[in-house]
């Protein structure tokens, strides 16, 4: 079916605004060409699209990034105290001088630009491949746009257990920066890697991360999305899981004018586990959208989605989560919870928690609740002499705890909790 003219025009205008990256190897050019024609045939998202029912995509689609002032803060980087290898991007461009040397035991790290100009490279089997798999049954044109136009990012090959986490740090320095980053991660059989991400990245940020997790491998992902009030971001995390592999991702988001985090996980090997969690605090002109799609295509797999949002001063939260159990994916254990706490009457929460199930021997459940802070709990604390604002913070932290607890590593979990406490306290000022 031909695209409506308005969509076609918006798509062409966006494509014209960004130069195609420098020519790479034949396989990379083929992948980019294919992604480009995907974008053209799907068209970039429009506010009438069902998948964008709750989040208006206009500012993510328009040719130039809407300006976003750089947030000045005395905060340190989230993961500074962690022993890690850190890789810095400034407004979406790799900064070699600020980064550690790209060398880590058990891991091979390259810049995307280097990988795509190598004629024979393993990334051929992942770059744009997982993104393409994630396009069905729901189109994700902004991810295809990323595959077609990204010129920077990292390509990571994990062959064993990484000796320390890799930390991708995104700095935002220009009010009008428009960043596109594409990371490719491949974990060999039994490999183990933790990726940490933090920072606001740019005025507008489009990021894709493709993670191929082989049999028995383990991938942990913890990220914080910075406090720049005006920034906008759309991120896609595509993962394919082999037999007995583990994938765990957690995201903490505070502020930002618009954040859309899509997570697309495919469980293709038996006995695999995927956990996706998110905690978000929004205050004011803020929209946070978690869109998750988990496909069970193997036997005896487990998936968990835990999303918590605290909203106030007109902030908006969106959750679109789906568990798809394909025919034959018996013994599936699927769990999904999305909850939001509305601290005042202006805030809004929209949810669409979906189940689509084609196998009978499964246990799938989802729950979603929305409401104000529990008056009884608040009264209990107040009766014990806790001032109202501190009591509210305590209750807020307790509410977010279920999502934060999804982080397996205790020290990382503590970092997230203290960051969260800091943010809540700061507001009390």
């Amino acid at each position, binding site marked *: 079916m031909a695209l409506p003219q308005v969509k076609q025009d918006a798509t062409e205008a966006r494509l014209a605004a960004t130069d195609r990256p420098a020519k790479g190897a034949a396989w990379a050019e083929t992948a980019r060409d294919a992604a480009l024609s995907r974008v053209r045939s799907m068209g970039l998202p429009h506010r009438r699209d*069902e998948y964008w029912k*709750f989040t208006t995509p206009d500012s993510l689609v328009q040719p130039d990034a809407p300006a976003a002032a750089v947030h000045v803060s005395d905060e340190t980087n989230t993961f500074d105290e962690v022993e890690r290898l850190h890789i810095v991007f400034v407004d979406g461009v790799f900064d070699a001088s600020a980064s550690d040397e790209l060398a880590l035991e058990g891991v091979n790290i390259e810049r995307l630009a280097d990988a795509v100009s190598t004629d024979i490279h393993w990334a051929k089997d992942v770059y744009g491949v997982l993104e393409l798999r994630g396009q069905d049954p729901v189109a994700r044109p902004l991810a295809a746009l990323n595959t077609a136009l990204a010129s920077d990012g990292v390509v990571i090959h994990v062959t064993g257990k990484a000796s320390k986490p890799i930390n991708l740090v995104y700095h935002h320095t220009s009010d009008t920066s428009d960043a596109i980053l594409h990371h490719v991660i491949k974990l060999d059989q039994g490999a183990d890697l933790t990726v940490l991400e933090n920072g606001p990245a740019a005025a507008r940020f489009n990021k894709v991360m493709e993670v191929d997790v082989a049999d028995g491998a383990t991938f942990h992902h913890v990220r914080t999305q910075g406090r720049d009030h005006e920034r906008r971001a759309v991120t896609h995390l595509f993962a394919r899981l082999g037999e007995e592999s583990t994938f765990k991702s957690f995201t903490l988001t505070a502020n930002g004018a618009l954040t859309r985090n899509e997570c697309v996980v495919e469980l293709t090997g038996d006995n695999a586990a995927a956990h996706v969690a998110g905690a978000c605090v929004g205050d004011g002109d803020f929209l946070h959208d978690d869109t998750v799609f988990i496909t069970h295509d193997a036997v005896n797999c487990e998936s968990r989605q835990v999303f918590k949002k605290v909203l106030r001063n007109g902030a908006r939260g969106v959750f679109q989560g789906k568990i798809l159990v394909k*025919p*034959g994916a*018996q013994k599936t254990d699927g769990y999904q919870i999305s909850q*939001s706490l*509305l*601290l*005042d*009457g202006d*805030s*809004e*929460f*929209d*949810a*669409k*928690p*979906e*189940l*689509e*199930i*084609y*196998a*009978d*021997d*499964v*246990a*799938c*459940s*989802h*729950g*979603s*609740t*929305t*409401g*104000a802070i529990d008056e009884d709990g608040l009264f209990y604390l107040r009766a014990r002499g806790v001032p109202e604002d501190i009591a509210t913070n305590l209750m807020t932290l307790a509410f977010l705890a279920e999502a934060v607890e999804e982080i397996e590593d205790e020290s990382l979990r503590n970092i997230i909790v203290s960051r969260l406490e800091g943010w809540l306290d700061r507001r009390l000022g």
Partner: protein
Amino acid sequence: MAALDDTQVKDGVDQETVDAVREMAGPYKHGWNTDIEMDYAPKGLTEDIVKLISDKNEEPQWMTDWRLQAYERWLQKKEPDWAMLDYPEVDFQEQYYYARPKSMAEKPKSLDDVDPKILETYKKLGIPLKEQMVLAGVEGADEAPAEGRKVAVDAVFDSVSVGTTFQKELESAGVIFCSISEAIQKHPELVKKYLGSVVPVSDNFYATLNSAVFSDGSFVYVPPGVRCPMELSTYFRINAENTGQFERTLIIADKGSYVSYLEGCTAPQRDESQLHAAVVEIVVEEDAEVKYSTVQNWFPGNEDGTGGIYNFVTKRADCRGDRAKVMWTQVETGSAVTWKYPSCILRGDDSQGEFYSIAITNNYQQADTGTKMVHLGKNTRSRIVSKGISAGQAQNTYRGLVSMHPKATNSRNYTQCDSLLIGDKCGAHTVPYIEVKNNSSRVEHEATTSKVDDDQMFYCRQRGMDEEEAVALVVNGFCKDVLQALPMEFAMEAQQLVAISLEGSVG
């Protein structure tokens, strides 16, 4: 269903009901058709057909204009494709939009004048003789002494309402219960005021189509403060081939009134799929309460998925006044394709909406059904309990919306939708939309999907039940919350239907 033969009839339960229920054992029972000479309008849909339908019903000009306007709008509309339904394209020009038994052209004077075939039809469907007389349109039948239970019935045979029972008795209570064509003649002011006020002419593709071509249906008006003295019931039957049925129901419960309304439907077994696109509008004024119960048992198609009714229905209740209350209960066992979302607009403060649903799909049936609860008034309450059961190769989807508007403060919603899968070739899906725009309201949604519990099956089997009986028992238990919301007599019928619909789904 041997167990049923030994059932002790409890006090207050009509023997007739028990017999009727007993009759229902076995596969689709209503698949026969009656060979009656029919008056058809030419196939297809044009402006002339719309005029012809209006003309046949001897409608006033304003009604004809209303239909024509709907037809114009329909031409510009596209068939919705968002539901999880997969069926061959419907050719709207290959349908008959009007069919009426020839013998109904003039009202028969006595039972002897009635086409015996129509009488036979109702007898087969288990409608009592007295009601048969009335339904057959025998003049004066209404005065004949009634036997047994009192449920006023409006029966719709293909395109026309063939009769309404107990009209006189209802009239003395002030209740108007008649076919909508009669209401257009006799109560134009009410019809003008309310028709299309809940489901606007161009609400959606099928509702617009219905607005243009609806040929008959039921009309209920309950005046202020009146508790309707008996349950009202409509019986729909599609008989003719390639005929769509487009009935329109309009229920108005004025201030402080109460009415309980039952709807049942069947159709003959045919290889070609047939279209059914109904609209039900309910207006609930201050302090009024309406209960609407449906047992939908249209022909579901055969085991190979051939034939069956395509059921595209728009049902909506508007709680206009404060403390208005509406309750939808539905048991959906029939139809090859179901597209149906009975909704509640909770406009009045403290108004309440409830939705209880059992949707059973077997063989190649597909159902995409659910509800919308739109909270606009303060302190409004809604509750959704949906039970979906999928067997064979069937697909069953719950699709719902709960929306809390900024002004709907202190409102509550609780939603529970459970799915049960029997067999590994079927599917069960849940697509809820939740939109909350104020923080004093609470919205809770829960959903589970599972299969028939092995332990429960083992327990039943150990006590000598065969597998099919055991599944029926477990499923009935699974549906209990909804079955309990049905009026007593309907509940019995529904329980049987649950068992029948799942026949052949195990083993």
